[in-house]
């Protein structure tokens, strides 16, 4: 592990200097080109359409590919931040490898993004940080509604509440989680608010009526 | 009929002083307690760079009355699953115990309820300790976890520290050779020294123990608001809560009075037997008059005429009191009242100073944890109190049997006691380190 001290982090550690070659006339143009509006970027499902995102082929990615082969679906860099798209079934193993071998020892965040038009609608996003390399890495896994991804709690206890929040907000059920229940919303709540099809004005009116004794929480 | 009236009259004739003093205590102590609260809030505000109550009356002087009115008209909530009867009378026990124990106290040579009780000091301590019954029963009857934990803590704390406090006063009792309150003060006059100088360790132990007994910070665990909300008082509201509160402050006055009597020379003025200091007898009216003058000075600065008017009233009240104190000095026929008035003044000054120390500590120190409190009580204070009793006894023996100089004997034995206390603290530190690093036996705080 010791020999590769530098490779992964041309990404973030040097970001304040802004010197790296960005292959794009980046979003500075965005305000200017307000009117055309880039024709509403097809469907969100189509990944990496913008020039800010470039395929990544670093030492680190090569090691991951070597180790996990086809489980690493893609490796990209967005705004100079690297991320790997991985097979959901292998997420646990890859996470363990990241912690033990690649020294990404802090699970900074674990969250999800909903893309309802996609066949498998959720992205699980784990943001890892390595103290040794002072670098971040994002692991992304695509998950469908019925899938039960393995819980990361065995690797990082901090995943406990983060996964509960994902469950609470998106309804993704993790297998192997020690106590998967709602965390921010009340236990009897129906629906998962951060799903895109959950309207912002929609409340669980039944719950509100039953538990608070009022017609609406608004 | 006539005979009954005769008996009644005779009864009144014999006991009128006691009756009047008793009524005064019952009627005035709650008021005084209310003003002790105001003084505490003002002192706290001063130490915390703020003003404290300022709205009700000038400088908040009427705040206690406003508080009392508020508490009286508040709803008296009795929790649904509580034991209503016990819940109802528990605060009364607390208050009654505190007031009853005052019955045996001397607030000056002539202001007292019961005269010459042989076991005066024991009575005060014994009866005031009954207040715990109110606390523990109230905590239990509330049927709330916070309350019951508060009650248990309070009881455990009281039992532990009463032992230490009781042993501590034995030092003074040995020196005085009596349990009568008046005789204890007389002994200090005779021996020309306050017992605090003869038994400093005893006084210190009593100071700590009395803070713990009255549940004051840093030993206010039974009502630690950051842990137990309000401890045993959590479920109480309105006047029942006020009774607890008043009982607590009345208790403070009781322990301060006991300490004053035993260690601080009671109602004796400083240097009671030094004749060229006799002008000190004129000090009380002077001090009170100065307070009046200050009030007049402040009256001009009040923003509202009502307040300024009230300030004038305060000033005149001060002058009136000063005149009462000055009268015996000015008019020879009234000279008989001088010792009584001055005694009461000095007694109150000492009690106030003692209570001030309570408050000062409260604003300065963080709170002990329960096990630390218990360790302090059982591992340091109680052994130290026992050693102290032993030391004072040895000193007295050395004086009476071997003709030693009393001061020499006391200095030597006190030094011995201090050495023991250093050793005890050292032992305790070692034990604390062992316990906190997980080695050694974790002791149960309640096992004591």
């Amino acid at each position, binding site marked *: 592990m010791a020999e590769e001290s530098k490779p992964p982090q041309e990404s973030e550690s040097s970001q304040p200097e802004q010197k790296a070659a960005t292959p794009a006339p980046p979003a500075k143009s965005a305000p200017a080109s307000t009117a055309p509006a880039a024709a509403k970027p097809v469907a969100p499902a189509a990944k990496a359409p913008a020039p800010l995102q470039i395929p990544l082929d670093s030492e680190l990615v090569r090691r991951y590919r070597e180790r996990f082969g086809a489980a690493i679906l893609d490796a990209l860099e967005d705004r100079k931040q690297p991320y790997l798209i991985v097979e959901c079934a292998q997420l646990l193993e890859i996470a363990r490898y990241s912690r033990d071998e690649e020294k990404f020892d802090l699970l900074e965040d674990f969250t999800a993004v909903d893309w309802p038009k996609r066949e498998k609608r959720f992205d699980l996003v784990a943001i890892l940080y390595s103290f040794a390399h002072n670098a971040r890495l994002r692991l992304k896994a695509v998950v469908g509604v019925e899938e039960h991804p393995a819980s990361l709690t065995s690797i990082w206890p901090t995943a406990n509440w983060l996964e509960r929040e994902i469950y609470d907000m998106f309804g993704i059920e993790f297998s192997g989680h020690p106590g998967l229940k709602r965390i921010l919303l009340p236990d009897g709540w129906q629906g998962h608010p951060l799903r895109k099809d959950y309207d912002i004005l929609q409340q669980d009116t039944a719950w509100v009526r039953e538990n608070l004794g009022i017609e609406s929480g608004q | 009929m006539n005979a009954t009236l005769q*008996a009644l009259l005779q009864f009144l004739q014999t006991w009128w002083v006691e009756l009047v003093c008793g009524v005064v205590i019952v009627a005035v102590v709650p008021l005084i307690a209310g003003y002790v609260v105001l003084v505490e809030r003002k002192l706290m505000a001063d130490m915390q760079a703020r003003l404290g109550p300022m709205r009700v009356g000038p400088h908040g002087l009427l705040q206690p009355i406003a508080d009392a009115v508020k508490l009286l008209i508040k709803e008296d909530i009795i929790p649904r699953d509580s*034991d209503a009867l*016990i819940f109802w009378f528990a605060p009364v026990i607390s208050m009654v115990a505190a007031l009853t124990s005052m019955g045996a106290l001397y607030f000056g040579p002539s202001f007292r309820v019961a005269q010459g*009780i*042989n*076991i005066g000091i*024991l*009575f005060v*301590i*014994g*009866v005031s*300790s*009954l207040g*715990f*019954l109110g606390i*523990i*029963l109230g905590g*239990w*009857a509330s049927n709330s976890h916070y309350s*019951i934990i508060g*009650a*248990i803590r309070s*009881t*455990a704390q*009281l*039992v532990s520290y*009463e032992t230490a406090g009781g042993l501590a006063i034995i030092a003074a009792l040995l020196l005085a050779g009596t*349990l009568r309150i008046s005789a204890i003060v007389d002994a200090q006059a005779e021996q020309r020294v306050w017992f605090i100088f003869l038994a400093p360790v005893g006084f210190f132990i009593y100071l700590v123990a009395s803070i713990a007994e009255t549940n004051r910070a840093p030993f206010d665990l039974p009502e630690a608001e950051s842990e137990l909300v309000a401890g045993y008082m959590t479920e109480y509201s309105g006047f029942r809560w006020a009774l607890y509160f008043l009982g607590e402050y009345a208790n403070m006055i009781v322990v301060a009075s006991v300490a004053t009597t035993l260690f601080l020379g009671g109602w004796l003025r400083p240097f009671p037997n030094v004749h060229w200091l006799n002008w000190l007898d004129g000090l009380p009216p002077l001090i009170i008059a100065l307070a009046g003058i200050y009030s007049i000075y402040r009256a001009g600065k009040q923003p509202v005429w009502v307040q300024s008017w009230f300030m004038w009233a305060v000033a005149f009240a001060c002058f009136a009191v000063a005149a009462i104190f000055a009268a015996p000095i000015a008019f020879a026929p009234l000279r008989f009242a001088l010792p009584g008035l001055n005694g009461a003044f000095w007694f109150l000054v000492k009690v106030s100073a003692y209570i001030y120390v309570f408050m000062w500590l409260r604003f300065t120190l963080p709170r002990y944890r329960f096990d630390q409190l218990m360790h302090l009580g059982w591992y340091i204070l109680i052994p130290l109190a026992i050693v102290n009793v032993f030391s004072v006894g040895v000193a007295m023996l050395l004086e009476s049997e071997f003709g030693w100089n009393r001061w020499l004997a006391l200095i030597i034995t006190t030094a011995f006691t201090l050495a023991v206390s250093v050793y005890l603290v050292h032992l305790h530190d070692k034990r604390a380190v062992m316990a906190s690093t997980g080695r050694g*036996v974790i002791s*149960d705080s309640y*096992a004591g």
Partner: protein
Amino acid sequence: MLDSVLFYFFAGVAVLSAALMVTRRNAVHSAVFLITTLLATAGIFLQLRAEFLFIAQIILYVGGIMVLFIFVIMLVRLDVALHHIRFRMQRFVAVLVALALAFEVTVIVLLAGKLPGGGLFVQGAAPADKLPPNTEELAKSLFSSYLLPFEIASVLLLVAMVGAVVMAKNRRRGDAS
């Protein structure tokens, strides 16, 4: 006159609260009435000018022992524990003991005058308020004529205390292992 009023008042309170203590089902209520009984008894001591006994009663029984009683009652769910303990024999024994006691008291009251020295009722004692201060008297007799029994009692209590501590410690160790 005042003395008899006080006596009957305290005696009445003592008997009444004793009866209530036995009949209450709630353990804490029983404890409260026991405290009342003890306080009333203390009042009788005071009425008899035995002020040291009075304060000893208050400090030791009401202040000390009752703390432990209430403590245990509050900490242990007695109502649960009581379901496990059956009092079949006790009731029978209690009736027997009560009868025996009643018989004894009756006999003593009947025979009182015939006992040597005038029996229980001491004749010709000084009026109560003329007695010497009894705190000193009690201390003197305890520490002079009855020194040996006093010391023996102290040692006995000490042994009991040490024994209790040792037993408690052993049990804790047993729990831990």
